[in-house]
């Protein structure tokens, strides 16, 4: 907990770190407190107020069914950010496990695992997503799992690279000499030293996942009603881009701001956690 406080205060020192922290905290707050914060019921239709532009009672206007856009966006944060966090979490678990095993055990395990990673990296990810998510009737869970299952390879590569360096360190050799089991060494002495890189990759991955999910939903392949992600909401603005501009603009801003938040946070975390880039970033 003390480390966490230290990390936050380090991040807070740079402008980009501060903006990143604030944006991410804001969106997490919106997602968690959606029922308290949203002014209207996000699924309640009001046909008299169909497609009405922003006003004081409906700050971001209403959609084609008269639903309040702001409330829909606040509830949409649960879906979009939930999928982003969930899929990134899955990718981190899979990627760290594979990277740790490959880098620590080396030998045949390494060769086989990295062959699989290369193979999966060669998969046209978006197309597979379009097929798997598009052919099913995707729930939030399915979308998050498929996204995560197709995105762990980069993390595995990063973790493996670091683990290969760390396993040659004297403290690892000492632990081996003391007769600790490989599993024990890997989890207690190697993994904590890779955690910095994992946190950075994971934060940047959350942004990427939100973006991919939004693209899928925008094309009509994502989560199905009554759930709505930001991409789903934007999809409605497509029918009449100028006549109902506030739908696309406000949903787009939600996506952009959240992505800026996660990307800035990821970049700043890298500056703070990775000593190599210390002089590269000013």
């Amino acid at each position, binding site marked *: 907990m003390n480390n966490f406080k230290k990390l936050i205060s380090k991040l807070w020192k740079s402008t980009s770190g501060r903006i990143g922290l604030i944006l991410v905290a804001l969106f997490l707050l919106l997602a968690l407190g959606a029922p308290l914060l949203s002014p209207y019921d996000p699924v309640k239709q009001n046909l008299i107020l169909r497609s009405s532009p922003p006003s004081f009672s409906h700050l971001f206007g209403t959609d084609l069914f008269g639903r309040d856009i702001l409330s829909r966006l606040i509830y949409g944060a649960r879906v979009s950010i939930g999928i982003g966090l969930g899929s990134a979490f899955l990718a981190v678990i899979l990627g760290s496990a594979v990277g740790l095993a490959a880098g620590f055990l080396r030998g045949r395990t390494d060769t086989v695992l990295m062959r699989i990673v290369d193979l999966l990296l060669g998969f046209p990810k978006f197309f*597979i997503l379009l097929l798997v998510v598009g052919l099913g009737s995707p729930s939030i869970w399915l979308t998050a799992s498929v996204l995560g299952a197709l995105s762990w390879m980069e993390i595995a590569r990063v973790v493996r690279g670091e683990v290969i360096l760390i396993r040659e360190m004297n403290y690892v050799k000492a632990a081996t000499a003391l007769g600790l089991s490989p599993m024990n060494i890997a989890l207690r002495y190697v993994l904590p030293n890779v955690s910095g890189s994992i946190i950075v990759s994971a934060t940047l991955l959350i942004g990427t996942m939100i973006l991919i999910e939004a693209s899928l939903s925008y094309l009509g392949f994502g989560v199905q009603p009554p759930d709505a992600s930001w991409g789903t909401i934007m999809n409605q603005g497509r029918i009449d*881009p100028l006549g109902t501009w506030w739908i696309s603009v406000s949903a787009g801003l939600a996506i*952009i701001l959240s992505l800026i938040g996660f990307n800035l946070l990821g970049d700043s975390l890298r500056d703070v956690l990775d000593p190599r880039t210390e002089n590269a970033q000013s």
Partner: protein
Amino acid sequence: MLAYSIRRLITALPTLFFGVSLTFFIIRLAPGDPTDRFLTPSMSPKIKAAITEKFGLNEPLPVQYMTWAKNVVLNFDFGKSFANGREASQVILDALPYTLLLSSLSLLFGVLLGLISGVYSALKAGTRTDRAITSFLLFFYSVPSFWLGLILLGIFSIELGWLPGSQISSIFHERLSFFGKIGDYASHLVLPVLTLGLTTAPVYGRFVRSSMVEVLNSDFIVSARARGLSERKVVFNYGLRNALLPLISILGTSFPALFSGAVIVEVIYSLPGMGRVMVDAALGRDYPVIMAASVVAFIAVIIGNLLADIGYAVADPRVRIGDSS
């Protein structure tokens, strides 16, 4: 180099085989029935059975797979589209040129913009100019291509009417002269290329900036400066050359992202490329077209990786790819 390329392509065959086979089973096991689009609830089950029979969907899955694979390998026959009976391979070949054109123009625009802004930003590191460019890159890095596309479409096509916002050519295209036709295509491609290029540029720009900053701080640059070489020579001959190396490998591996970006942009601007074909095929469970498209997608990724390796070897003489194994 040629021998290496051929060997690389041969070693990529398992990836292609495994990936395409996996796709075959994934799409068959996913829910949804290709016959749905031809049926209404009032029709007799006999009609459904007849259509299933006609498409060869009543055989066991492994048998269907073997039949499909045999036809593809021996006759280059991907089967006929369920939607309109056209050869699936022809459907793809008709659409592919538009996607390739859109992707390559956008890649060119994106790389140039990314390179210039990244290098310039690195040279001015720490100044207000640097911060402005970095923020610009971060903004477009975080903008979804479909959002940017929609905004550009709304402003420049619908509101101002400066540029066409859908299709690849005008209705009077056939009556234009040769150069008129080219101009017609070009005007239809401005907004799509702008959309895809602006959203890919930051990927390269951010990368070039950090790699250039690192190189400019390294010892050999300091010593080059100390030897009294002109700043231009230091930056371009020493700095840029070394900073570009990692960019080449990023370029090759960014092909899939470019491809998926093109899919979205094509849908927004109603271009007749692979995007439209893939989305329609996925929605309609048009198995033959999906499979033909997936073969193309896998090959695109494999070629992208190969080009990255070759480009890397050309740019860095230390890498001898001929005797790497």
